[in-house]
């Protein structure tokens, strides 16, 4: 048995035998409606890959407001959400359109309060990772060798220094981060939300364990036996998952290891569009508000794009777990 995305136009949803039985399997609309209320703190994570644009667009469509958006690299997804006015605050460590340039909508909010002011709370990457680790492990703080000699602690009072009780001197610390909601995109999960991820695992595990509610969005729903067939790859247990959304190509235009490549044209196009306020509004209208769901978004994409984004096959070297019965 080998499950993978069906390559070609439309990336059809796989038949999932047990899925109808699971109360966690929800449409993106229902998952967002149920678990992402106005005013909540939300982390859509995945470091410059596995970025769940499907969730971000649904949140825009449902016109959420006053969110605290948390993400190490806000990327296009948060640029679009902030352009649409869903956020009042951003917690982050790097603002950029990866490999392209600036995030113009976020800069417009920060520099000119358009469409509204945006409060910033910023860390370095390891500071954000450390906050997620502390949140996930219920540690009161995370110590790290950073921030010494910089202006970051001056503009962010949450970054502090304490004395090492073993006498090596002061060390920086950051506090736990526990988002109200986390949304994680991955390759596959079973209907209970036991989720497997390979490639850049980033900080997705820590974010899921740190969050109050967890939505996993996957390319494929697989039988439980698939998960149990390689337990070392299960990063997120269904135990902490509240909703499982089956949304093939839900991370377009970003990457999903082994499933599709980045659609770089979209990244370059956003760089042009987002520099103009009216063009940004038009784009949101055409690609988000006027599109009912991800299926419609995918149908609206140039079919040739899908073929172009398909990676070749490179199967992992097999390993034997052994039966031990």
């Amino acid at each position, binding site marked *: 048995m080998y499950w993978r995305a069906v390559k070609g136009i439309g990336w059809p949803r796989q038949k999932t035998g047990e899925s109808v039985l699971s109360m966690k399997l929800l449409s993106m609309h229902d998952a967002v409606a149920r678990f992402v209320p106005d005013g909540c703190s939300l982390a859509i994570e995945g*470091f*410059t*890959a596995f970025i769940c644009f499907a969730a971000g667009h649904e949140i825009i469509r449902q016109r959420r407001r006053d969110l605290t958006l948390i993400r190490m*690299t806000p990327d296009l997804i948060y640029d679009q959400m902030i352009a649409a006015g869903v956020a009042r605050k951003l917690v*982050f*460590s*790097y*603002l*950029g359109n*990866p*490999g392209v340039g*600036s995030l113009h909508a*976020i*800069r417009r909010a*920060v*520099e000119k309060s358009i469409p509204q002011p945006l409060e910033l709370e*910023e*860390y*370095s*990457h*390891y*500071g954000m*990772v450390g906050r997620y*680790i502390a949140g996930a492990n219920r540690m009161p703080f995370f110590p*790290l*060798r*950073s*921030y*010494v*000699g*910089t*202006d*970051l602690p001056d*503009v962010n009072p949450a970054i502090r220094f304490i004395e090492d009780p073993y006498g*090596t*001197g*002061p060390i920086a610390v950051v506090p736990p981060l526990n988002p109200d909601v986390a949304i994680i995109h991955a390759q596959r999960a079973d209907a209970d939300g036991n989720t497997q991820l*390979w*490639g*850049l*695992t*980033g*900080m997705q*595990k*820590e974010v899921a364990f740190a969050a109050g509610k967890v939505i996993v969005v996957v390319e494929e729903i697989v039988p439980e036996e698939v998960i149990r067939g390689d337990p070392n790859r299960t990063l997120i247990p269904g135990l902490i998952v509240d909703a499982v959304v089956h949304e093939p190509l839900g991370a377009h235009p*970003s*990457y999903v*290891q*082994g499933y599709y*490549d*980045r659609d*770089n044209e979209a*990244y370059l196009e956003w760089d042009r569009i987002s520099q103009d306020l009216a063009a940004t509004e038009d784009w949101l209208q055409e690609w988000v508000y006027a599109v009912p769901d991800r299926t419609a978004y995918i149908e609206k994409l140039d079919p040739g794009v899908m073929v172009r984004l398909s*990676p070749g096959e*490179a199967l992992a070297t097999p390993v034997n777990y052994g039966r031990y019965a």
Partner: protein
Amino acid sequence: MPDQAYTPAEMMIVVAARKLAGVRTVFVGVGMPNIACNLARRTVAPNLELIYESGVYGAQPARLPLSIGDPTLVSGATSVVSMADLFGLYLQRGLVQVALLGGAQIDRYGNLNTTVIGDYAHPRTRLPGSGGACEIAINAQQLFMIMRLKRRAFVEKLDFVTSPGHLGDANRRAAFGLPGAGPSLVITDKAVLDFANSEREMQVAELYPQVTLAEVQAETGWPLRAAANLVATSAPTAAELECIRHELDPMGLYRN
């Protein structure tokens, strides 16, 4: 004879690659640093291991990566780890010999600003922020800065200190307990600068072909020293340019 029609970007790539001679581990970004490291691996540093902050150790990218999250960095890598492990077990553990960094502003001690131009609360220009740069600058064994020489970038005083260089004092890094040795080179499009003096203050160490000290000074916001043993950098060789143009940058992104 080397092909003289090279671009400033190609020269920066070539110089950065040469400086990685014999190095085992390098912390890479995308763009110019990525090409420089891959050039070094094909020339002066065959055992160079590429480390990306996205969690990749020992990458062998089959194409020019679009971002540090590019799946081509994962496929065929030696090890792919969580960011907790990349920053903790590799960087903070001290396993990164050289890290390549850039920034919007740098001062004479190699301190970097990638946060804001203007006031923090009301910035004229909001820059990307630290990313991993702050802890990279603190923990990597040494730093190579790669920046085009511009007066607005090489400034007397930073608008914001994002990443520590030598902090304005030759001994301050040690006094503050910073594990890494800090910036050792600044590789620009006109010259290579280093910090090989007792004050750890940036000085001109190498001049590129056809570049004068006055031209370098003109793009620097403070009175710049020159090293006693100032040398001339040799132009890219035909082999170096061939490797960049045919293997590493076939799209010609750095040919203009």
